[in-house]
């Protein structure tokens, strides 16, 4: 059963003289437990597509339906709440709060959800151990390598128990060893816990791991291949 249905999704940027179609009438479906890479050259519309899918950027046209909820028909306040409970994000630049420890960065999202301290502590410890950072739990981001920071970001994305995780170029700032490590962790989470991952990437190593590859070009789907 599809957890995400995308219908006629379009994003047009109005420049001063020209109109740019960043995403051009895309129709797609994602199933529970998919490990999908959205690929394409720079400017193909990957990030815009992911932003609309994640409720961060509004479409000019079309629908994003997640578990029968049309996200873009929700009010701004309800959409923020919907993101909080249904979507996990992993960003290219990790985007951890530098003043918080790894534990606090992961706990933050559960605090926003109103979960108890006891539950937060238990889940944060389990998640950081799962991504191999059980011994770095109280380290601030500045004391962690890029790969470790991105693993904290994955733990943070998982902390809210989302329906799926969107990762925008998650390996772009990582060396090959850190990339391999991160991909192994995400693949393991996907296989063992049936967590749905959707990436945007240029990285061949990510594409190699992905079981479905959606290729965009000029905002349109060029191909949609399942291995």
């Amino acid at each position, binding site marked *: 059963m599809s957890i995400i249905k995308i219908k006629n999704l379009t994003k047009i940027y109005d420049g001063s003289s020209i109109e740019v179609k960043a995403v051009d009438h895309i129709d797609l479906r994602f199933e529970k437990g998919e490990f999908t890479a959205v690929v394409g050259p720079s400017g193909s519309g990957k990030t815009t597509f992911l*932003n609309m899918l*994640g409720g*961060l*950027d509004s479409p000019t046209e079309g629908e994003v339906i997640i578990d029968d909820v049309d996200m873009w028909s929700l009010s*701004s*306040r309800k959409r*923020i*709440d919907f*993101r*909080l*409970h249904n979507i996990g*994000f992993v*960003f290219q*630049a990790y*985007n951890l*709060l530098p*003043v918080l420890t790894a534990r606090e960065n992961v706990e*933050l*999202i559960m605090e*926003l*959800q109103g979960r108890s301290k006891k539950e937060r502590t238990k889940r944060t410890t389990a998640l950081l151990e799962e991504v191999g950072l059980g011994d770095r739990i109280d380290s601030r981001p500045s004391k962690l390598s890029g790969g470790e920071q991105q693993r904290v970001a994955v733990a*943070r994305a998982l902390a*809210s128990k989302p329906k799926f995780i969107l990762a925008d170029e998650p390996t772009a700032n990582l060396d090959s060893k850190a990339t391999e490590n991160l991909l192994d962790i995400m693949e393991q989470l996907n296989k063992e816990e049936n967590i749905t991952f959707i990436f945007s990437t240029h990285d061949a190593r990510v594409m190699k791991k992905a079981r479905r590859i959606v290729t965009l070009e000029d905002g349109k789907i060029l191909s949609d291949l399942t291995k």
Partner: protein
Amino acid sequence: MWRNKLRSLVIIIAMALGLTTGIFSTAFYEGLIDQRIDKVIKSEISHIQVHKPGFRNATEISGFIPNAEAIAEKIRTFPEVAGVSNRLIVNSMIASAETGAGVKIVGVDPAREKKVTNIHTKLVEGTYFEGKRRNPVVIGHKLAEKLNVHLGSKVVITLQDINNDITAGAFRVTGIFNTMSNAFDEGSIFVRFNDLQRLTMIPDKAGHEIAILASKNDIVNAVKLKVDSAAPGLEVLTWLDLSPEMSYLNEAMDLYMYIFIVIILFALLFGIINTMLMAVLERIKEIGMLMAIGMNKTRVFLLIMYETVFLSLTGGVFGVIFGSLISKYYETHKIDLSIWADGYLELGYDPFVYTRLEWPLLVNVTIMVIITGILASIYPAWKALSYNPANALRIE
């Protein structure tokens, strides 16, 4: 807030200095006004005065209260009363060998008067009606200068008696006082009650004015109510009615000082807005991330507001502490402004000022600092919320 320590410290120090100045200035002026009011009460008018209706407007010699001493005696029995003095008040001319001047003569029973006013403590020369010398007069130093008289000098007081006949008496200067109020020191003289009574032929036990000093400043209104019932048909006025300009001065100064502090905080408001705006713009990517993962706008706004209020309060608390410590120190150590003594004395103020710090001021200032913090957070928070998360995350 501490990511850019220097920037935060600058605004905290600015806030602390501004409030230290504001609080100390307020305590200084409160002290100055208090001393002025205290002087007016203790040297001139006391807390409460009783007159025959209309006497204060005309000061007619015939406007005496026939049973003044009996009323005064009754009031002396009130436990809340520290002193009661029955006085004779007559407008007259005083002349020395060189010149003359118009003055208000106050006829007093020295022992009773000492319990109401403090003129006896303000003597710079001579004594306050000691000994049995006939017709002594105690005058202010300003009048002494004007008449060119000294201790022992003879002066002639000319006045109208109760029968409207002009009469005169020779008096000898036995004391010279300095209340540090030039107008009072030049315009009022004191003689013995009996000497003035004899000269004016006012009946025994009568008086023009019953001056009452309450044991505490804050019970004056309660004492007035009791005096009202002890003096039916007479005009009973408190110092606030007798000297409305003092009451106005007191209220106006409170208002001016709050306006002064508001101006300081208003100036600081822009500094705080600037600091917070820079802090928000530096962290716009983090704020974008927080909004992306599901922090709603109210929480983002509160996050920025708490930080701004905390920044303001940190400076505010230091300002309140420093301002209070300095003000408290000068409550017991005089601020010497004697180089401007002439100007201060002319206006009736002491050139030596002791500050007075009121605790409600500190509470109000703290509340004002919090309000300033809240106001200062609005624009930076609005700026942060104006980005959508996708755009905020793209900013490098």
